[in-house]
């Protein structure tokens, strides 16, 4: 089909750009690195203290003893901080160095902004290089900027929300690591009643070898406001393992609605150990749409904490694992208030010897009467060596509730392939078509460019692997 286009895409993501770095820290995590980050960014004292506290927690917490194998991840080899040489946070595309511009142009960032999005941001390594928000929204008080800038400009807005009640550094080892060395990321503030009807977008890219990316995304959607945000992630291929330990904190206030979408396509030797959490107040609606295509190992379980009455969370996720990949993804929903509801839909595809695991938790706390939750997860196994696991946990402490979980595991049926081939498709095309059909219900929730990218990525991963 689009064989040529497909080849181009893979190269596009895997190629590194010759970007110059103004500063690169030594590999390994020391207090010195943490202080250097904070000093460089001219951060207020409380943030430095927060980082140091997180570092202390990081050293105390054990590595997770469940899930995928993390033994090849050497935390002492990771570079925790590097800055590309550029004008910090340019808000005109033309002001960026040519190399960076080229990289992002290849990935389609400026076009996307021109045509479809309300605002766009881009980050290479630790530093955000580009952030822009259409004037119209700025006038209404919407703030969309990079996280470092937000900390400088709006400390009072950031401080009460930053790694406090949503994701605390004590949550797990990588949340603590993130708290110590976080850098860059997106900050979004939508004031009361404002409805941003076009999606905002950000793109994160790891470019250097052995790099760690630790962007912090904080989104506050005030009472009655609405917004959608989408982010894409990628990195080139290197010999040494990279680490992505980002953190996303979302606050959906009363009657607000927010959709967070992400397409993560880190290179195959990246450890993607990510934390995403939303706190949803009364009548609020939170939607997570996520797809994990890249990375060697992914551990990502977006979480919604439904603390307000009548609040709702919808989780949609696709995971795709080819040979050498282990996608350990899922969703967590805590129902803490009455009449809350949640749906989780997860689809996973394993090809070659890829492993996909769904790991999820639905918890209904005492007093959350009238809560409802429905979980469905479907897995498609393409080859003989493919593996799929399902580990759904449910913890129900209240009787007036309805919770249901369903899962199926299947293979691509020979009948379907035969039918499509009898219509003139090659076996490869037929398989791709069946896979596209399988993930369709989730892909259709993504904006057009991302849906196209998603489909292309999957075709690209599948190309040449039909046996």
């Amino acid at each position, binding site marked *: 089909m689009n064989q040529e286009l497909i080849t181009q895409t893979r190269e596009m993501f895997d190629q590194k750009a010759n970007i110059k770095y103004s500063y690169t820290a030594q590999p390994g995590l020391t207090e010195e690195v943490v202080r250097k980050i904070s000093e460089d960014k001219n951060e207020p004292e409380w943030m430095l203290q927060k980082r140091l506290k997180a570092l202390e927690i990081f050293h105390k917490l054990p590595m997770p003893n469940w899930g995928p194998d993390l033994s090849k991840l050497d935390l002492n080899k990771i570079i925790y901080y590097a800055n590309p040489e550029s004008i910090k946070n340019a808000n005109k595309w033309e002001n960026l160095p040519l190399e960076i511009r080229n990289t992002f142009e290849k990935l389609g960032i400026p076009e996307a902004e021109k045509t479809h999005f309300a605002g766009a941001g881009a980050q290479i390594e630790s530093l955000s290089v580009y952030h822009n928000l259409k004037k119209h929204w700025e006038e209404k008080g919407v703030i969309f900027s990079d996280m470092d800038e937000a900390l400088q400009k709006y400390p009072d807005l950031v401080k009460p929300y930053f790694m406090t009640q949503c994701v605390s550094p004590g949550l797990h080892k990588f949340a603590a690591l993130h708290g110590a060395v976080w850098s860059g990321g997106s900050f979004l503030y939508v004031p009361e009643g404002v409805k941003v009807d076009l999606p905002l977008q950000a793109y994160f890219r790891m470019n250097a070898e052995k790099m760690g990316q630790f962007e912090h995304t904080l989104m506050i959607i005030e009472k009655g406001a609405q917004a959608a945000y989408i982010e894409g992630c990628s990195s080139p291929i290197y010999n040494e393992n990279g680490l992505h330990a980002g953190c996303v904190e979302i606050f959906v206030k009363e009657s607000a609605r927010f959709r967070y979408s992400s397409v993560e396509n880190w290179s195959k030797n990246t450890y993607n150990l990510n934390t995403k959490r939303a706190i949803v107040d009364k009548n609020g609606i939170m939607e997570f749409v996520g797809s994990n295509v890249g990375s060697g190992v992914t551990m990502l379980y977006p979480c919604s904490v439904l603390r307000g009455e009548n609040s709702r969370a919808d989780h949609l996720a696709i995971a795709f694992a080819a040979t050498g990949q282990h996608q350990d993804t899922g969703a967590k929903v805590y129902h803490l208030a009455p009449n809350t509801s949640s749906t989780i839909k997860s689809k996973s595809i394993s090809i070659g010897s890829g492993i996909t695991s769904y790991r999820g938790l639905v918890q209904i706390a005492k007093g959350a009467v009238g809560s409802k939750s429905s979980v469905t997860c479907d897995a498609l196994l393409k080859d003989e060596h493919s593996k799929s696991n*399902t580990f759904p*946990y449910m*913890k*129900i402490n*209240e009787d007036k509730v309805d*919770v249901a979980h369903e*899962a199926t595991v299947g*293979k691509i049926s020979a009948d379907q392939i035969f039918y499509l081939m009898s219509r003139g498709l090659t076996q490869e095309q037929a398989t791709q078509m069946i896979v596209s059909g399988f993930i369709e219900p989730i892909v259709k929730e993504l904006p057009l460019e991302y849906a196209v990218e998603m489909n292309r990525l999957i075709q690209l991963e599948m190309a040449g692997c039909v046996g």
Partner: protein
Amino acid sequence: MQDLIKTAFTREIVEHISRQRSEPEWLLQKRLEAFSYFEQLEIPEFSYGLGITLDNNELDISSIVISEPIDPEMKNHDKRIIVKNIHEALKTHPEIIRKYLLRTKPKDKLHALVSAFWTEGIFIYVPKGVESTSPIEIENILSKQTGFQTILIILEPLSKASILISEKSSKIKKSYLFQNLEVFCLESSKLEFSSIQNFNDETINFIYRSAYLEKDASLDWNICDLGGNLTKSSVTTNLLGTGASVNNIGIFLGEKTQQFDLSVSANHLAPETSSEMLTKGALNGKSKTVYCGLIKIVQQAPRCSGYQRADIMLLSPEASASPIPNLEIETNDVKKCSHGATVGQVDKEKLFYLMSRGLSEAEAIKQIVLGQLEPAIEKIKIEKVRKSLKNIIEEKLSYA
């Protein structure tokens, strides 16, 4: 037999138990092997990850003593089948027992405990080609402080049998039962195994069941956990031969502060094997259930099918349920594999309807709960088991 041995669980005690029963050397070695696991393994923590736990305050290993055997009542009407005390059977069938007994590797410290310190055993042997129609009945009345039992069931090729074990309490209030049960279904044999556990509400019981199924063998487990304070009821089926199939029915009913740790797993180790698991239960009062199900299909086992379903009904705001139905699939060539779990409440409309027909609320709820358990009860093939189960359930629900 000697009475109570009030010593800690040591190697000497294992040797003492074995010597006292004039066991052959190989059996002592098997006990000692289990004892080495006992020393290594940890006491189950009743913690299942993600904050899901059961309360094990009532469980105090140091207070457990080894009492005299319970001496279960055994009823068998088919003379071709051998049902007897294992120590007697050692005289008549030493080779068979040696081949199969204690083949299962202990899962945790308490499983190792019973594997090493069991004081009495039951041996059920169905010879080749024997098809029995009347069920073998075993009644365990827990009249001592503790029971340490091992049960060995062997079905030779082409045989067919059904077994019912009833677990009850006598007047003794707080007591313990530890049981290690192993089932071997050889080629093309068929077994329906039922267990109705209805201990009093202070009894702590740990029952570990393992089955090994060879080519075309089939096994039905009907496991009903109704009584007990803390119950750990585990069923593991290893599908070793092509075409073997297992059908698990699980029924539980909890009230007051009863706690259930139920685990059901099927390991598909050969092609074209199938497993089905249906668990239905209802919880009242402050009772709590953790259900862990696992269907595992290895790469060398193509064309298998697995189905798992757990439906739990909560009747009180203080009851809680945590179903964890897991799947681990390592091959793409699966016939079908799916699972489902639900946790729900008494349907208001059904309740209203029944009450509008003149039933009291309690009576209406009882009928709804029976309706919830019915699909599982109906799958039990032996009428006698169905009847006695229904009676116990109805009686239990009338008190609630």
